[in-house]
């Protein structure tokens, strides 16, 4: 399709099921019916699963990367004294390459 604003061709990108047209010239973006709602929904999910924001200055170490497990700051399988056994391969993984 052509850009309704400047008339240049628009390119389609598909990201996680949402189709986005962007103008090759003016970089304007065109959304089909329902796509804005789809993006809003994805944004809400992303916010829920994203790692916590960077800690305030003074805290020693930030919590981790963007691909970290959701809510990994609140639990973990190993590390506490007295957590015995090798459930589900967790212990084994800490002892192998």
């Amino acid at each position: 399709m052509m850009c309704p604003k400047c008339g240049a061709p628009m390119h389609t990108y598909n990201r996680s099921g949402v189709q986005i047209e962007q103008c090759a010239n003016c970089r304007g973006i065109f959304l089909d019916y329902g796509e804005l709602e789809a993006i809003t929904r994805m944004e809400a999910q992303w916010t829920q699963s994203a790692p916590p924001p960077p800690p305030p200055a003074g805290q020693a170490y930030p919590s981790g990367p963007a691909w970290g497990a959701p809510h990994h700051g609140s639990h973990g399988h190993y590390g506490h004294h007295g957590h015995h056994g090798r459930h589900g391969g967790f212990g084994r993984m800490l002892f192998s390459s």
Partner: protein
Amino acid sequence: MSDQRAAGPALRGALARLMGATDGEVLAERSDGTVVRVGDRVAKAHDPDAEAGALAVRLGVAAAEQYAGVLLAPLPRGGPVEVCGGRNASVWPYGSPVDPDDPGAAPWEAAGDLLARLHAAPLPVPGRLPGPLPPMRGPVKAARAVTRMRSAPGGTLVAAARTVERAWAALPAWCRGEEPPPRATTVCHGDFHLGQLVRHPAGTGGWHLIDVDDLGLGDPAWDLARPACWYATGLLVPDAWERFLGAYVRTVRAAGARSGLAEEDPWPRLDAPARALTVQSAALGIAKARAAGRVLDEAEETCVAACARMAAVAAQAELPAPQGP
């Protein structure tokens, strides 16, 4: 197959004879290494693919005085010996390992401190080693794990393997072993995990790092990246990770060494190696599960799920940033 089975007892006997015995207790028996204990010593047969020259240098590093109390030193202080038709072997003092049934009791501070001392020590004098320091083998091992996944019997875990491939493709070339790392001036262990720590003398002595087979010059972030991966994937509680990283940072700073890993946020340096090691664990899990005709265990699933999130983060970054008119 029968040849491989027959090689086991012959190799075990040859290792025991290096320590003056006819037989010993097998501590490890894998395709890339066999370890036999006799009294207060152990003998190790190294990976059949290990290059003898590089292995001799790695044993020389373990014996070098600046790593005393950090790397367990081999006995006697010298290069590898050949056993069983060309297999390289070396003899070491026996050290007591971390209890595999209680990884929670692992010495996280000692581990961080040991790696910091390894990284901060002055490099061995070239003339004192039998050759130049080889590269650290971490990235090559990650690539090997992905190759092993690709060559494992297919048909199952197809979606998991595809996810791992996407996470692998998003890594920088150096993390895939395709290019030298941007920094390679530090001696790194190359394969740190809880099985690489022993107390020597056994039971009461200080903790030491063992297994120098992958040691060499590389980016020290690689050595912190496996605990970082465990923490990021949720395998390890934040407290254990912070004790490990905190000890590392304290020792690096006390040594007056400059390192981006001792900055307030080490993740810019840790991110890519931690992703590579997560991919490695996921790929090995898939390869082993395929070979055994089983499903992934919980830890392996956890690593594959992390690979999916890495691929999603990479796909987000691919979308060109919309620009204003």
